């Protein structure tokens, strides 16, 4: 099988794979992670201190997202968002969203569910006394959260958040269902065009492995550097 392995095919494809494919994958991963973390933190705060009605809605949302397959959510958003936009903006016809925006929105909303669970666990692990100490100094609840609780949560949870982001990095390859060209999609296209399936898929696997493996190592090193001295 490897007798006809053509390294040249990979070399020729490199610019396209990295400049188009990997840039797309990384952009989608980073933006989704940031958006997911912000929305996820908001969901966690609502679930902890937002009153029974909002907390129930947030919990329902998180559970819904976590019980649906990601591919289904990607499809669902792609077809539904134009109509939701039309309804929200009172537009005469479904609004144009585009594949990338739709995918980004999907990943943000999907990842938010997972990030919110991580943040919720983190917030509950910070001793209640810390929040009370903030209040006792005259802080509002929001200030105590922002300056005392959340900074501690982010530090202790950073390794878990980054590990989840590595999973997200792999999951972004699912955007192929919207005909978007991420790294895997780019490799796949070239594989089909040149008839070099073995080379391209092996190379893609190698790149995913290398990036995720190195990222995991980096997370482990970071873990000891940001740890809070107790």
């Amino acid at each position, binding site marked *: 099988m490897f007798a006809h392995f053509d390294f040249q095919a990979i070399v020729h494809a490199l610019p396209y794979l990295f400049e188009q494919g990997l840039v797309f994958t990384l952009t989608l991963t980073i933006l989704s992670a940031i958006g997911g973390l912000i929305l996820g933190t908001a969901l966690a705060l609502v679930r902890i201190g937002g009153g029974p009605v909002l907390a129930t809605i947030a919990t329902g949302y998180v559970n819904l997202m976590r019980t649906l397959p990601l591919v289904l959510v990607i499809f669902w958003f792609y077809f539904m968002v134009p109509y939701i936009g039309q309804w929200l903006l009172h537009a005469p016809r479904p609004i144009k969203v585009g594949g990338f925006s739709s995918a980004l929105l999907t990943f943000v909303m999907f990842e938010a569910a997972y990030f919110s669970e991580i943040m919720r666990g983190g917030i509950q692990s910070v001793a209640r006394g810390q929040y009370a100490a903030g209040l*006792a100094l*005259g*802080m509002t609840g929001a200030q105590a959260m922002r300056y005392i609780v959340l900074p501690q949560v982010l530090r202790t949870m950073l390794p878990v958040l980054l590990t989840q982001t590595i999973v997200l990095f792999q999951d972004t390859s699912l955007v192929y269902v919207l005909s978007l060209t991420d790294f895997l999609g780019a490799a796949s296209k070239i594989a089909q065009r040149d008839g070099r399936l073995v080379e391209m898929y092996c190379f893609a696997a190698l790149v995913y492995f290398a990036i995720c493996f190195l990222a995991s190592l980096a997370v482990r090193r970071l873990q000891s550097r940001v740890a809070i001295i107790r």
Partner: protein
Amino acid sequence: MTDTIIALEHVDKWYGPSFQVLKDCTLAVPKGEVVVVCGPSGSGKSTLIKCVNALEPFQKGEIVVDGIRLHEKGVNLPKLRARVGMVFQHFELFPHLSVLENLDLAQIKVLGRGKQAARAKSVALLQRVELSAHADKFPGQLSGGQQQRVAIARALAMDPVVMLFDEPTSALDPEMVSEVLDVMVQLAQEGMTMMVVTHEMGFARKVAHRVVFMDRGEIVVDARKDAFFGDVGNERAKQFLSKILQH
């Protein structure tokens, strides 16, 4: 009455529908006085002191702190708490901030002090509790006694009109108790109004004006210090005192 800093009027508090932790508690702390609250564990003394700065809600009665009624509608609790210093049993220093940053934070975010003014105040207070050498360390690198002194300095940085202490030495190793008490004694002698939940009767003898004894959620004895240590006139309090003083 204008010089009363803390006034509790018939305060009742329940946990759930049936368990009453505070029963008809009435108590006044005049300006400049040191009031020690003691009593067996579970008697409600920590709950009582946490009600004073509204960290714990109470259902009936009223608490007036520096002229502000806690149960009044629209009362600005953060503003009130900023003027009431609180020291916790477990210190509650912020572990992600250095010692100096612990002192700076609320001055800047709550009082709106400039960074330099806040830092100057923090440095002076650390010197006062004799911890200047540890200014840039993190709380986790300090001993319990040192942490509690930092916590006192952090509360003082807000220029409080009254200081609340919730069992400030109960979580400390015995050899560290005195370094914390020394700071508190000094504070008392400078005229700070203080309400102190503690079992340290030596501290009470030294600086308290009044001693309050609580049992099962009630204030059983509220007497001048000399009267309290002389003849309490209450069996429960006598028993309690004999138990903690016999060693």
